[in-house]
């Protein structure tokens, strides 16, 4: 072959790669005859053979796709879904995967909507015919309406976080749902009162229920031990009209159209302005979010007090006091952390916190045709002139929520980011150490080898997990969150190198005796260069396979360590520490999504990595081709 028509090496590699790809589609039948022996030889270079073998292995391709999928899910997801340490709402704790919190039954709409109330994960609707409809996520069997309620004609409903009250046309009160503080039932004392007095307003807080009767009296039952709500001051009793309930307190509207506060002391919501307390402004409705109060006066204007963070008191500009052409309001509704108001212009206004999209009022409600609004917790409903029902706010958690009400989906993404990063960095550290120590020991031999291998023996002599736990407890005691994660990477890295070091050393010992090393040395090439240029390439396959397989192991170790509470600690999520709470039997039994999902994520990722590792090993092992 003359020098001129010999292709440049890079082009050669490129074109033969193209041919390889092409031959994948043409089953190698093309070009076969036109090649010379040299070209035929050149096509099957070792690295190409490895790639070809690897791509031929279906399982390895499945594994590779699995890894790519997880990387996209975890790292792409982290980019798209930001992680907020403070996120999460107690009211949403332990909700199963669902997306139907706002999926009201069509029947309710066709019958005509009388009233809608919501609890932490469900909503209850009352239609014009007095029938009750329930939807959302079932907690405490809340969606199962008792038979006696179904039989009665209901005129009024109310909901606490996990219980429902319903008043029949005959004045009988029903309750169902969570009854752990007897808030989900009607005590004898209340039934007795209802024989004489009639209910004008009723409602539920987190663990209590209340009624206000036509005698202006307030009765509270359920979990009132901490807030003393059941002991109503005599100055209030007898002149109450309606109320708005917060978690541990109530705002009361009196018959002189002033308001008052009742419940736990020292809360931000108890700081009611004097002009509302003394009745100089006449009020028609009062509502309460967790820390902020809101009242509507008889002129249709809004007054607010209490906590002002999260935009809770940012009444829309158009309706604020500064605007001379401001519109008045017909109705106000309080969610957990937001407010919704219906203007006299028939539009819906919302302000406050928007974590669950509770401020994303649909465009159809901005056209002046809204007649009623219903808001509780993070669910919002509005009725239009034509009887259409529109909903917005939280739909549910697609993968459920954890014990702090945090979204499992977000936590899985960000937990995966931490678990996968920790594993990767740990493997990089251990590979670096392993290769370095193995190379040095193998090449220099003698006392260096002896010393290093003794050292490897010491490190590997400890059982792996106990050592990792001990080191983690000893070294991360006073570190901050990120330093801690970094330290976990380092710990995992520095205790898992001996295996690879031995492997590399063994391989080097074998390679060192070969003729090409002898030749290189004879030429007077520095030993450093002999190691890096001549010996290392021969063990690189070994290193790649070892890295892949130990990455899978590293993922599992991190998960195990965090599971035991010695790895990544909350609030930073990791797949391991998401499972820490799963050791309690009730979590295993009832909240399956909290342990199955993160465990499956670890399994899926580790399996994918193992498949790729196995595929690589088989692709690199010439014996594996003999079938």
């Amino acid at each position, binding site marked *: 072959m003359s020098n001129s028509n010999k292709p440049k090496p890079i082009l050669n590699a490129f074109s033969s790669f193209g041919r390889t790809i092409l031959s994948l589609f043409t089953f190698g039948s093309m070009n076969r005859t036109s090649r010379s022996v040299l070209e035929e030889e050149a096509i099957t270079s070792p690295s190409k053979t490895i790639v070809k073998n690897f791509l031929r292995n279906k399982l390895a391709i499945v594994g590779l796709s699995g890894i790519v999928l997880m990387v996209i899910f975890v790292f792409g997801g982290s980019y798209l879904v930001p992680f907020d340490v403070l996120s999460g709402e107690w009211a949403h704790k332990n909700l199963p995967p669902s997306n139907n919190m706002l999926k009201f039954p069509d029947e309710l709409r066709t019958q005509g909507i009388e009233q809608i109330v919501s609890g932490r994960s469900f909503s209850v609707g009352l239609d014009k015919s007095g029938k009750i409809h329930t939807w959302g996520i079932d907690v405490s069997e809340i969606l199962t309406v008792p038979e006696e309620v179904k039989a009665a004609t209901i005129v009024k409903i109310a909901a606490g976080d996990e219980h429902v009250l319903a008043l029949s046309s005959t004045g009988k009160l029903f309750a169902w749902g969570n009854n752990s503080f007897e808030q989900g039932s009607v005590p004898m004392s209340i039934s007795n009162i209802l024989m004489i007095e009639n209910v004008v307003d009723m409602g539920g807080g987190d663990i209590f229920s209340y009624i206000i009767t036509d005698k202006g009296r307030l009765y509270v039952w359920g979990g009132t031990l901490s807030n003393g709500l059941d002991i109503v001051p005599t100055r209030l009793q007898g002149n109450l009209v309606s109320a708005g309930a917060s978690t541990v307190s109530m705002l009361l509207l009196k018959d002189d159209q002033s308001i008052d506060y009742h419940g736990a002391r020292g809360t931000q919501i108890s700081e009611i302005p004097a002009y509302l307390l003394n009745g100089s402004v006449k009020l028609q409705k009062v509502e309460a979010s967790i820390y902020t109060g809101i009242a509507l006066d008889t002129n249709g204007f809004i007054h607010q007090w209490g906590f002002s963070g999260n935009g809770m008191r940012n009444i829309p500009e158009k309706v604020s006091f500064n605007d001379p052409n401001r519109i008045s309001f017909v109705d106000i509704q309080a969610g957990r952390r937001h407010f919704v108001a219906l203007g006299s212009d028939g539009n819906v206004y919302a302000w406050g916190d928007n974590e669950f999209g509770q401020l994303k009022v649909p465009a159809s409600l901005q056209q002046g045709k809204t007649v009623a609004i219903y808001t509780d917790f993070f669910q919002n409903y509005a009725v239009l002139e034509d009887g259409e029902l529109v909903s917005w706010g939280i739909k549910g958690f697609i993968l459920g929520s954890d014990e702090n009400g945090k979204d499992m989906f977000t936590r899985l993404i960000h937990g995966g980011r931490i678990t996968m990063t920790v594993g990767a960095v740990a493997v990089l550290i251990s590979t670096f150490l392993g290769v370095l120590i193995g190379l040095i020991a193998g090449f220099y031999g003698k006392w260096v080898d002896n010393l290093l291998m003794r050292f490897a023996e010491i490190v590997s002599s400890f059982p792996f997990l*106990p*050592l990792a736990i001990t080191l983690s407890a000893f070294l991360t*005691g006073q570190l901050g969150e990120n330093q801690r994660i970094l330290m976990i990477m380092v710990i995992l890295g520095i205790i898992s190198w001996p295996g690879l070091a031995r492997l590399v050393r063994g391989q080097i010992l074998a390679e060192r005796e070969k003729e090409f090393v002898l030749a290189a040395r004879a030429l007077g090439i520095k030993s450093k260069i002999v190691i890096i240029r001549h010996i290392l390439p021969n063990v690189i396959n070994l290193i790649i396979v070892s890295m892949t397989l130990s990455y899978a192991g590293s993922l599992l170790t991190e998960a195990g360590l965090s599971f035991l509470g010695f790895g990544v600690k909350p609030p930073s999520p990791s797949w391991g520490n998401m499972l820490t709470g799963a050791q309690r039997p009730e979590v295993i039994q009832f909240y399956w999504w909290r342990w199955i999902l993160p465990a499956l994520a670890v399994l899926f990722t580790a399996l994918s990595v193992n498949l790729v590792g196995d595929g690589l090993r088989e692709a690199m092992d010439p014996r594996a081709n003999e079938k």
Partner: protein
Amino acid sequence: MLKFLLKRIILLIPVIFIISIMLFGMFKLMPGDPVLLMLPPDLRSQAERDFYYNAYREKLGLDKSIPEQYVAWVGNIARLDFGTSITNNRPVREVIARPLQNSIVLNSFSIILAFVISIPVGIKSAVKRHSFFDSFWQVFSLVGLSVPVFFIGLILIFTFAIQLRWLPAGGMPRMQDDGSFAYFLQWSRYLILPITTLTIGSLAGTTRYVRNAMIEIIGKDYIRTARSKGLNEKVIIYTHAFRNALIPVVTLVAGSLVALFGGSAITESIFTWNGIGRVLIDSLNSRDYMVVLTMNIFYAVLSLTANLIMDIGYALVDPRVKLN
């Protein structure tokens, strides 16, 4: 042989010495003053406080220099006195003894089971490569290698303890250990789930190991020779191949020896089994470092011994290995 043994044992001494210095150093670097935890709660004056503080320091030998403390500690260990656990004020040896027994019981069952299953399975997989049997176990072992141990445990609890209610979810029998058969029956019910978890966890690795070792041997020339001589396939596999495949398996057995005592923190923690792994976790959480230190020294000595046994084992099964 004897000379080799002696040499190895002598070589072990500096290694153990270095490990003990490392561990002791780490222990001394720990934040937190154990004496503060021991002070009586109702001290009225600073002087009173100082008195108790110094008295305890002296009692614990903490007033001496660190090298002096180290020498004293090594001396104590040589006399098998491992110090006192600060959480329950009992000798560390007593604190560890019972959980260690429990762990050994758990681990020995699961290790024996793992070998009893994986050796025949590994051999059959290797002999019948690419058969359905082989593929099944290959998939099983890949999944087994990738599944977190706690997931196996949680699934077993969910299925057999919560849904089917066949077995207890964890813990130890409530009745008194009176050595009766009834107690034994009770006790073995509590053993089943943790043993299954541990066995599944280790089965994957051992099966693959045995299979790979067998495949390596079956590809050797002498097996081909045996086949061409027309030997019975059973004889080839069990006398010629398996015996040689045993050599790498010896490594595995020696490794299991450490695991036998090592305890399995995760499994024991899920099944609330009072084993050595849980003692380690509890002691770390309650900063009972004397127990932690003792356990790590124990582990180090144990696994160095296991290494030695492994080397001897190699020499015994493989005449090519010369002890020198």
